[in-house]
Every structure is written in C-alpha cells, then in structure tokens.
C-alpha cells in the first residue's frame, strides 16, 4: 500500500464531491422510487428519504406482474444479440488481423462508415425487409437489428486484440498438424476470454438499452422489451413519479450490476474502440 500525501487526500475529497453532484440524478431516481407519495412532492425536495418503503416495487413486480414478460424479452434479445455478435465478430476480426486479404481494409472502412448511420435510419429499411419475409414481431428481428448496432464496434475492438497474440502460436500448431480452422478453435479461441467478456458485455448492454428497434420492429406486446415497457408506463403513470422511478430502477438494475462486475472491461472497451 502506497502512502498518500495530505494533498492527495484533499483531491480524493474533491473527487467524492464531484461524483456526488454528477451522479445525483441516479441517486434521485432510486430514492424517489422508495419514498411515499407525500414525500416525493414535498417542498423543499427531501434529499435524504425519511421513510423508506418498497410499495412501488411490490406493486410492479408482485401485485401486477405485467412488467415480468418485458424483462424476459429484454434478456432474450440482449443475450441473443451478444451471442450473434460474437459468432460473427470473432472469426471476422481474427481474419482481419491475421490474413492479408484483398478486401480486408475495405471491409474495415465499410464497418466504420455504417456505424455512423443513425439506428433509426436503419429501422425503416429493416422494417420493410422484415415485413416482406414475415419476420416483424419476432425475437430474431430484434436480435438482427441490435446486432447491426453492436457488430462494427465488436470487430473494431477485437482486431487489435488478435494482433497482440504472437503469430508463432498458430505456426507451431500448423507444424503439429493443425489447419487454420483447428488452429483457430483450439489455440486462439481459448485465449480470447477477456475480449469475449468485453464484447459480450457491450453488446448485451447496447441491446438492453435499445429503444429504436424495440419501437419499430416489435409492434406486438409479446416480444416487446423493457424499454418499450417503460414508454408504456410513462403514458400510463403520467406523473406518478414513484412508480415510474421504480420501473426505471428495475430496468437499470442489470446495467448497474453488470457494470460493477465488469467495469474494467467496459473502460478498456471504450478506449480501444476509439483507437481504430
């Protein structure tokens, strides 16, 4: 353990204050959800809740279970997106890092360009395409939509990772009688655990928070994810802020949990994504 000077402890104090001010909205969301109605509308606003109660959670999770299917749908879509993204991105990023392919650089450029297009502009053509092949209102449509969002990012951050693996590994494997496929599956894939974790965390979180494809590609309540559930509650609850903030906290909980578990991977993913 390093010894810090007094000045460094003062910096820590400033950091705590900055964090408290900056993250106040999240704190406010959580505290609003556990306050009784009268305290929510108290003036001045009650910064530290006096009575804590979980009525809003009880109502939305146990008494009225209409929220649960939304949560299930969100999990299916987010996990499916993470899976499809990995399935496509892993071999692709590997090939782009290892092989000298004629189309490799062009493909990388196309990925960077398509990533710039707003998701909502992709939604209309995908809606028309999917309605022609009767895929609107399916988990698959939502998974494909969200994968368009996650795939470029996944490939862009995976490629440098493969570049950092020494080439000698596969060469040795080939001498031992592997072809490029078995070398990839047996030698390279087991090494990719950290980057798989980063990419799947990101694609899961992207898909979990998606509203655009949920709004446009799923008009049927049966497959609609939680983000659409929240927009429904916004209409239904109006200014019943305790209910709305409870639903929001429930939807944010997986994000906060995943975030706390994988924060190291998330930070490294963001900085790698902008490196090119």
């Amino acid at each position, binding site marked *: 353990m390093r010894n810090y000077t007094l000045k460094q402890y003062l910096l820590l104090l400033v950091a705590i204050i900055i964090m408290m001010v900056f993250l106040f909205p999240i704190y406010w969301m959580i505290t609003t959800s556990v306050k009784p109605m009268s305290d929510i509308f108290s003036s001045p606003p009650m910064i530290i809740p006096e009575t804590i109660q979980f009525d809003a959670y009880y109502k939305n999770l146990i008494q009225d279970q209409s929220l649960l299917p939304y949560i299930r749908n969100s999990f299916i879509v987010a996990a499916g997106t993470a899976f499809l993204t990995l399935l*496509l991105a892993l071999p692709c990023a590997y090939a782009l890092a290892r092989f000298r392919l004629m189309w490799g650089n062009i493909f990388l450029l196309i990925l960077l360009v398509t990533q710039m297009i707003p998701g909502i502009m992709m939604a209309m053509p995908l809606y028309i395409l999917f309605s022609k092949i009767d895929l609107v209102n399916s988990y698959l449509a939502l998974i494909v939509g969200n994968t368009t969002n996650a795939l470029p990012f996944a490939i862009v951050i995976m490629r440098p990772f493969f570049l950092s693996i020494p080439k000698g590994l596969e060469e040795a494997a080939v001498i031992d009688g592997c072809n490029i496929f078995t070398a990839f599956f047996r030698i390279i894939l087991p090494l990719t655990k950290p980057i798989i974790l980063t990419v799947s965390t990101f694609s899961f979180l992207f898909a979990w928070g998606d509203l655009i494809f949920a709004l446009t590609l799923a008009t049927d309540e049966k497959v609609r994810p939680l983000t659409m559930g929240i927009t429904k509650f916004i209409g239904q609850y109006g200014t019943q802020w305790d209910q709305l903030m409870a639903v929001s906290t429930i939807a944010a909980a997986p994000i906060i949990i995943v975030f706390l578990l994988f924060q190291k991977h998330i930070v490294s993913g963001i900085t790698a994504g902008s490196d090119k």
Partner: protein
Amino acid sequence: MYGQMRNKFPQYLFLIPAALFVAMFMIYPIVYNVIVSFQDLTLMNLKSGAKFIGWDNYINILQTERFGIALKNTIIYTSACIFFQVVIGYLMAAFLNQEFPFRNFFRSIMLLAWMTPLVITGSLFKWLFDVDYGVFNYLLTTLQIVDEPINWLGQQSTALTAVIITNVWIGIPFNMILILAAMQSLPKDVYEAAKVDGANKFQTFLNVTLPLLRPQLMIILVLGIIYTFKVFDIILIMTGGGPVNATQVLPFYGYELAFVNFNFGESGVIATVILFILICIALLYLWMIKKEEAQ
C-alpha cells in the same frame, strides 16, 4: 490470380458470415434508403410495389417548414452538446489525471451516466426538470437565479436547452474517458521541460498539452459529432419533438415520416440527407488528417 484466390479461400471463410450480415442488414438498408427516396412508397403499396417519382419527395420535404427547423435544431443540438461535453470532459479528465487514492474507481463509476439506457435517463430528467416539484427548479429558485419556476419542457424557448443539458450529462463521462486515455499516453518529459522553462499551468496547457492532444481530440470530436447526431431516444421520451417543433431534429423527423405517417419515400429523403451530411463530415475529417500529415 485464380490459384491465389483458391489458396486464400479458407481464409475468406472466416470473413464471409460477417460480410454477408453486413451486406444484407447494413449496406442494403443504406442503399435502400436512397432508392426509396425517389419512390412514392407508403404502407398502401408496400406489397404491390411503388413507382419512381423523381425528385418529388425531395421537393416536398425541402418545402416544409419542419425540415428547416429540424436541420437547424440538429445543428444547434449537436454543436452545443459537443462543446460542453468536450470542455467539461476535458476538465474532469485533467482532474482525474492526478494521482490520488481510488482514482480508477471514480473514473469508471462516472460511466454509469453513459451506460444507463436512454429511455431511463429521459424519464429521469423529465422528473428533474418538472415544473412544480423538479429538483432543478428548486435549486434555481432557492439560489434566486430565477424568480418563477421554469416550465423547461413545456415551452418552446427552453425545451431544446433542457434536452441539450440531458445529453451533455450523458456524454461527459464518455468524453472524459477518451480524453483521459489520450492524456495518459502523452510523454512525461515534455512537462518536466516546460516546468524547467518556467511555464505556468495555463501556458503548459496552451503550448504543450493542446498541440500534443490535437490528433486524438480530433478523433474524439468526430466520434462525438456522429454519436450526437443520432439523437432520438431522449427526444421521443422527453418532448416528442415539441412543443411546436421546438425540439424537432432530423432523425426524429425521419422516424415520424416513416412510422407515424407511413410515408416511406419521404422518410428516405431524410435518411439520404443525413447520410450526405455524415459523409461530408467524414471527408472533412480525412482531409484534415491529410493536411496534418503533410505538414
């Protein structure tokens, strides 16, 4: 040549699944948007097929007052957001670039603002901006900055500002992380040299840090413009484009045309305009890099 292709075929197999996916679900939609912008496609003739109608959709859209407003708002929104995100992000990065206990924890905990789904952030800020019970109005009236509570989202003059504030909050940690990573990659010895030469903090910032960070700051700026340009979710949740188009932006306008009016052709026009603007930004960026390298 043929033999070479054949040798490389197993290697191309790695690329093919992703390439097919990108071609079908990413490039095709972009091309489709451009094509459909010249057609009279609506929900009615979706199955039977639409006719080409030349530039009619473009003429219709460009004549509406809404398009001009949406374009203007998108530009104001993007530039204001980028400016404040980068400046505040820079200040926070400079702060976190100092050595103190738990600083990595603070660096990543801020990201919660960026990771939270936009739907949630939107409804949360709607509550914070509430006229009667919102925290922002309470602060402003108690500190006597304003006399009357402001109806942030309910009036034309302040709605865009409120949405901008929300998005600045979302974007700060993202910019901070990137700027901090760039700062940490800077060589340490130039700072010592600057100290020896007697430069003060501001001079060091102006003459050492800023020129060294320029290439990375440019990437961050371009990334920021592209991400901010996409604004949709928080508009839908917080204002729905209103009141009276005060927060109407291009992506939201395109959405309304396609999924509220079901006029796919006109929505294609908006998508094509957005594509055109983004290509211009990308080209400008490439040109700036070239110029930089030539120097």
